[in-house]
């Protein structure tokens, strides 16, 4: 999904336009945080990672090839940072080991959730039911609406593998959520 306005904003920020830099920061805070939350499935870790990602993006804006779209580059930076954090954090690995229980995959009805922070908590809990690779694919394709070709290039896998991984993720999430709250997920049904 191309975003020419964001491409131009990033280019202006890279050229030293302070106003554009401020606008870039405001525009990117939430998308970067959402990606971090999706990849890490942990609110506090996502907040830390988002700060670090914004700084890393800022530091490398000038080195980016301006002829290439900004968003895939940003996603790549955020993805790599989140992977690094997962690898380097033993406590995170311990938590990951505890996330194999499908009962973690609870996602309440959005209308039941009053605050954005509660949404983040609910989404993190639900996504924690997935292994990291499936989570990455699900977040990028289903939640961030990237196409399979772009995600395949980002994850260095074939588009067909993206689709297969996505199917696994959807099944796993469906089973996890259905096992916990079957009525919520009946079409048109509420709890």
């Amino acid at each position, binding site marked *: 999904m191309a975003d020419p306005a964001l491409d131009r904003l990033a280019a202006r920020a890279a050229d030293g336009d302070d106003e554009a830099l401020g606008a870039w920061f405001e525009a990117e805070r939430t998308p970067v945080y959402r990606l971090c939350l999706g990849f890490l499935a942990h609110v506090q870790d996502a907040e830390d990672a988002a700060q670090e990602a914004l700084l890393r993006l800022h530091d490398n804006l000038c080195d980016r090839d301006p002829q290439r779209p900004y968003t895939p580059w940003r996603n790549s930076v955020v993805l790599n940072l989140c992977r690094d954090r997962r690898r380097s954090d033993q406590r995170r690995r311990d938590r990951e080991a505890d996330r194999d229980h499908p009962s973690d995959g609870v996602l309440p009805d*959005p209308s039941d959730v009053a605050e954005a922070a509660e949404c983040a908590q609910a989404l993190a809990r639900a996504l924690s039911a997935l292994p990291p690779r499936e989570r990455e694919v699900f977040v990028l394709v289903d939640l961030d609406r990237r196409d399979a070709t772009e995600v395949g290039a980002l994850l260095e896998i074939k588009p067909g593998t993206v689709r297969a991984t996505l199917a696994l993720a959807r099944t796993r999430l469906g089973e996890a959520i259905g096992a916990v709250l079957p009525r919520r997920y009946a079409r048109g049904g509420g709890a």
Partner: protein
Amino acid sequence: MDEHDLARWRAHYERIEAPAPAPPPAVDWARDAFEGLRAPSLERASSSPSLAWARETAERIAAPGHPATPGARWAIVTSLAGASLAAAAAALLIVLLRPFGAPDPQTTSVAALQRATDDVPRIEVPERGSDPTPVVRLRADGLEFRSGAVRLVVLDPIDED
């Protein structure tokens, strides 16, 4: 998972917003840091409670026997409050560390920091007044100071071995 379920997931995802970039105590802390840099003497800078915390933290880290004692190349990694505050805070740490035995923050090394990471994963500093609980912790790539949304990190430790 059908389209109905997927719409529910997306509704959650798209309602999520990043946390506010700088809660007031962190802004105050960074403002103190900036004012401290403009102060004609370190004594004036030290009159701020937040700066006193920063100074004590620096002193603790620079104390003999602490794993980070050899010093480091101090730099700011991130401040959600913005680049100018980040630069001010980075310079602040350099200012603060000079009296406490780090010979030259720009060039000295901190090999012990990396070696100590496994032994001392986190040092908690007690809460002071209305400040958010400031934290100092060792990371794989450096040392991190944090107060609210303002974060300072020691970058690029140079291994002397």
